[in-house]
């Protein structure tokens, strides 16, 4: 596999970076980078880390990084997690207030502990911490419960004080969304599977409305809704499928869509095949008063989506 870190890859312009990923020769990983500048979204770093863990440190070749900003990768813990050498030296600062370095979560207990520990790292207010905790919990639990990824969920995040926003990236090298969703729902392509996974009430664990006792099929819909109400980007990449919720303009009426394709979005079904799932989300933290409105909108959207699906399945008796 080959992955190239460009000078810029955030959720708004992440598409070329993903198109440049080469998944051939899955037992080896070659990491190259722009030699002038590297500025990337946490999801990009999580992706590189997830691939590196999959192949193991002895099978990673990483070019000498020349860009002045390469130290950021060191501070995020990329080389440490992958156990590969680097000659980039940095002065280690206390990470509190700025970022969550690369973290691997493999169990429910690790997740609960991580959520408790990450809040002080970012020095967030209680209301803001709730949103972040919510997102991390739902996304990581998806990985732990569905992905069957031996390396678990790999995540990192960066806080931006100027915009009071946080960017989060979670990657795994597990089964991928299509393999799990098609256990209960038909999906011909990876993109079809992503579309289903983003709909409220659809889970790979059952075809039954309302989910199972442990899964409702609502987690990704909630996260997309949080991004939507924040008017921020949200990306899901799994297999060859890629979905990006695009930024939208402020609207007085908060309107959510059960079908992610009804949102302002871009999508592609022919991306290089990612061996698992990647989720990236940007969240503006100063809109916490919107969270309550968001829940009202979710309640309304969720209910009507379930009713619509029941109506579609309803069959009248045939009288002849």
């Amino acid at each position: 596999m080959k992955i190239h870190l460009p000078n810029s890859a955030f959720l708004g312009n992440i598409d070329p970076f993903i198109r440049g990923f080469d998944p051939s020769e899955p037992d080896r990983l070659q990491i190259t980078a722009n030699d002038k500048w590297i500025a990337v979204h946490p999801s990009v770093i999580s992706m590189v880390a997830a691939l590196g863990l999959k192949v193991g440190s002895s099978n990673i070749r990483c070019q000498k990084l020349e860009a002045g900003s390469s130290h950021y990768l060191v501070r995020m813990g990329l080389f440490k997690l992958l156990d590969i050498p680097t000659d980039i030296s940095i002065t280690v600062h206390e990470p509190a207030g700025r970022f969550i370095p690369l973290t691997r979560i493999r169990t429910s207990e690790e997740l609960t502990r991580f959520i408790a520990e990450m809040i002080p790292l970012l020095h967030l207010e209680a209301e803001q911490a709730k949103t972040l905790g919510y997102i991390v919990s739902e996304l990581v639990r998806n990985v732990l419960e569905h992905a069957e990824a031996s390396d678990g969920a790999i995540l990192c995040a960066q806080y931006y004080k100027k915009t009071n926003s946080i960017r989060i990236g979670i990657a795994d090298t597990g089964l991928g969304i299509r393999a799990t969703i098609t256990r209960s729902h038909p999906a011909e392509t990876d993109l079809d599977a992503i579309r289903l996974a983003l709909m409220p009430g659809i889970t790979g664990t059952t075809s039954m409305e309302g989910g199972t006792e442990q899964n409702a099929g609502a987690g990704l819909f909630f996260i997309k809704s949080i991004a939507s109400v924040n008017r921020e980007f949200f990306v899901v990449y799994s297999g060859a499928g890629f979905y990006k919720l695009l930024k939208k303009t402020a609207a007085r009426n908060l309107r959510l869509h059960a079908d992610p394709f009804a949102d302002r979005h871009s999508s592609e079904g022919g991306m290089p095949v990612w061996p698992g799932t990647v989720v990236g989300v940007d969240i503006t933290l100063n809109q916490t008063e919107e969270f309550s409105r968001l829940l009202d909108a979710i309640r309304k959207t969720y209910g009507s989506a379930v009713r619509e699906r029941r109506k579609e399945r309803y069959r009248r008796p045939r009288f002849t």
Partner: protein
Amino acid sequence: MKRIEIHAHAGAFAENKDAARDLRLKEIIPALDKGESVVLSFERVDAVTQSFIHALISDLIRKRGVDVLDRLEFKSCNDTVKKIISIVVDYMQEGA
């Protein structure tokens, strides 16, 4: 009447679905089976995830019907927690 302190089992940010399942199986169901009512106290719980609440109560509604809600009381919930509980109760009834 059985009273269960969610904070004691799941902390201020209640997100651990395994803890929710354990509460349901080991505390709530045995109490309901004995004919008791159950008070789920969310005192000192700042936030919950939908997944947590789903794991806590959805199966009760599915298997015992909506009447089980007459024997469950959600106490000391803040507005956000109330709304998330309402979302789960709603969709469990819509899909029933």
